[in-house]
């Protein structure tokens, strides 16, 4: 085998795939070929680096150079300058948003400084399509330990001691869940990996499956062994084609190596994994709905109890964990429960992957220890608010989460703290909002999602959320009444308390938390008919300031509905009943004579 001096790690995640204007791997390989360097330098497609904002990303190892926004046409420069001459390509280095300094390695980037990558440990290092890479990184060692040394109960004990909690949203202790499934006797049990990631903007599970599919496979085999199940299923949404492709490759490789199938590692334990495709319904991320869907039924939750650990897939004891939860497990076995438990906060151990999005400078996928504060995430890792605007709120937990504000910035992020302040961990969505975001509109946005994604089985969620949405729409349309606010409160409470599954029980959270934290904004909307953020069009109107208007007629000419009247050199006027609030007049006025009230 040729001795490689250098690796060019090209991000193979969906985000970077989408932002590349061509085949980056091909361009780099061809360029190396042309310079007769293919023997010395290896191009490796790998998993997500997390810094999707600046994709496509190419990392050069071992000198650890982090190139951002790399396009195929940059391949020549990377090879000619960096590979041959050892000079870093300046223009492809990350530029610090404030200091404008170019930073050449990820170690010194704010985005990475506070991160600890456990679940994402192999993303960006291994080639997800190579089982050898995974094995080289201690892959399947944990499985060997479990099968050869620990046995089922000790494995579960380690899981319990580690304090690992479900990363899909509920935060239920994984070890306990396994114990229940193990304790329920049955000749047939199942292990299910929930890869039906549905929160808008969340993509941690996808990234793990795309970047390190073997970790999930290994963990599922361990899970199967621990609870005495011989069959695993991965329920993945069909709109994750790349993740599915890589998972399939990984499954075949594991089968070829005998890590799946009969008598795994000579232990006598049989296990195999099938893939089941979801059609992308949000509610199918709820474990009972997921099981229904896998059975070919309508994707609707069923009442718990019975929990899947008693009666799940095909009515048999079933353990359901999500992708990120599984990704932690091999490391916990390898490094020990106490190592894992030493990371994180009191009741939330380890790390959590978040999809950081919204009005921050550094958007992307991050993994931080539990207990990191919101401030650290938003202002250090996220690099603060975009365009120098003011921070207003951060929404965690996806559509079922809540909006947190200034006073929560120093809250250490963990399961219990987030619930205490009226939000939740969820699967790890984190959307940052600035002063231009209207909180009523924000809750309307989330409600729109839950109305769309409710399965319709129970009345409070089916009708209640629709009515919540309608009230919010009335308020943002300027037709809200004072009593609507009471209705919002009562409806939210009832939907939360009376709905069947987690979707309905959390869907009013955005409304409730914004009402708790931004009540005056709601009041303003209904009593003063004003939207301070300036985002509710119905609540604002354009006016001409008489003393500034010189009568240049520019605005009148630009108005698409001819609602501005006035003679040349006379003060103009906007006819409010005709105005469509497009803002053209304001944009075109050179005299600051147009204002929004």
């Amino acid at each position, binding site marked *: 085998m040729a001795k*490689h001096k*250098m690796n060019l790690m090209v991000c193979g995640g969906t985000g970077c795939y989408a932002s590349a204007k061509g085949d980056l791997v091909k361009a780099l390989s061809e360029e190396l070929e042309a310079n007769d360097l293919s023997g010395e330098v290896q191009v490796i497609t790998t998993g997500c680096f997390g810094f999707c904002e600046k994709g496509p990303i190419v990392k050069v190892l071992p*000198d650890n150079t982090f190139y951002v926004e790399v396009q195929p046409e940059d391949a020549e420069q990377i090879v000619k300058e960096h590979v041959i001459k050892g*000079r870093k390509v300046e223009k492809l280095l990350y530029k610090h948003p404030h200091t404008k300094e170019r930073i*050449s390695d990820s*170690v010194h980037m704010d985005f990475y400084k506070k991160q600890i990558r456990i679940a994402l440990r192999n993303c960006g290092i291994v080639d997800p399509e190579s089982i050898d890479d995974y094995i080289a*990184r201690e892959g399947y060692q944990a499985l060997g330990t479990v099968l050869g040394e620990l046995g089922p109960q000790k494995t579960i004990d380690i899981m319990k001691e580690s304090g690992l909690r479900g990363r899909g949203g509920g935060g239920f202790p994984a070890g306990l869940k396994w114990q229940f499934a193990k304790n329920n006797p049955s000749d047939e049990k199942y292990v299910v990996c929930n890869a039906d990631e549905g929160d808008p903007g969340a993509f941690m599970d996808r990234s793990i499956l795309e970047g390190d599919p073997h970790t999930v496979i290994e963990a599922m085999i361990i899970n199967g062994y621990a609870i005495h199940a011989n069959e695993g299923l991965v329920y993945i949404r069909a709109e994750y084609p790349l993740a599915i492709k890589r998972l399939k490759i990984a499954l075949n490789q594991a089968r070829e190596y*005998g890590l799946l199938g009969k008598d795994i*590692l000579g232990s006598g334990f049989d296990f195999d994994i099938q893939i089941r495709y979801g059609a992308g319904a949000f509610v199918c991320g709820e474990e009972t709905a997921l099981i229904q869907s896998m059975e070919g039924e309508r994707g609707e939750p069923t009442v718990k109890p019975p929990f899947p650990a008693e009666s799940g897939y095909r009515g048999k004891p079933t353990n359901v964990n999500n992708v990120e939860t599984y990704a932690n497990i091999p490391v916990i076995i390898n490094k020990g429960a106490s190592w894992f438990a030493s990371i994180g906060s009191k009741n939330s151990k380890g790390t959590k992957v978040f999809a950081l999005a919204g009005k921050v400078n550094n958007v992307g996928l991050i993994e931080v220890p539990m207990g990191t504060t919101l401030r650290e995430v938003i202002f250090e890792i996220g690099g603060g608010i975009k365009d120098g605007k003011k921070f207003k709120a951060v929404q965690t937990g996806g559509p079922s989460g809540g909006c947190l504000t200034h006073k929560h910035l120093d809250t250490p992020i963990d399961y219990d703290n987030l619930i205490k302040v009226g939000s939740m961990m969820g699967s790890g969505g984190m959307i940052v909002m600035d002063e231009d975001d209207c909180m009523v509109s924000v809750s309307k946005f989330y409600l729109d999602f839950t109305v769309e994604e409710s399965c319709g089985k129970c009345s409070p969620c089916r009708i209640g959320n629709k009515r919540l949405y309608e009230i919010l729409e009335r308020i943002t349309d300027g037709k809200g009444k004072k009593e609507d606010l009471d209705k919002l409160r009562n409806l939210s409470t009832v939907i939360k308390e009376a709905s069947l599954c987690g979707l309905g029980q959390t869907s009013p959270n955005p409304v409730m938390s914004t009402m708790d934290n931004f009540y005056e904004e709601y009041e303003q909307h209904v009593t003063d008919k004003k939207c301070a953020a300036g985002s509710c069009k119905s609540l604002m109107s354009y006016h001409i300031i008489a003393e500034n208007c010189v009568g240049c007629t520019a605005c009148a000419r630009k108005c698409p509905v001819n609602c501005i009247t006035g003679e040349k050199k006379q003060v103009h006027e906007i006819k409010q009943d005709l105005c469509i609030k497009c803002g053209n007049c304001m944009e075109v006025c050179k005299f600051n004579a147009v204002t929004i009230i």
Partner: protein
Amino acid sequence: MTKIKSLEDLKKMQAGLRKQIELREKGENPDAHTQIRVAMATCGIASGSKEVMDYLMEESEKRNLDVVVTQAGCMGYCHSEPTIEVTLPGEEPLTYGNVDKKKADEILEKHVKLGQLVDGIIPVTHKTIEEKK
């Protein structure tokens, strides 16, 4: 493909595979390893830095030394090429000039292994190109 039959098989296999990933793993966390940067600009290559770099890589692997060998641009000491810069974990970098295979061997044996300095250190007269900005 042969099946992996036991944990021992797996461990053997892993040991064999480690090499292919080592380069990447070390690169991820360079400060934890001894770093040797070889100046590989035209001047360096002309005076044999490529051979020195290959030698350093091969030898450190053979001798089981925890070393990351990377290439750098011109360090500005064209009079003493090939030059290499050695950084032990947590220490300031030191630069050696006129490094041939023999010198390289000495550096590995003494500086890297034992932390003893070797003759041929170039006093730092100016900042490297990369630090200039």
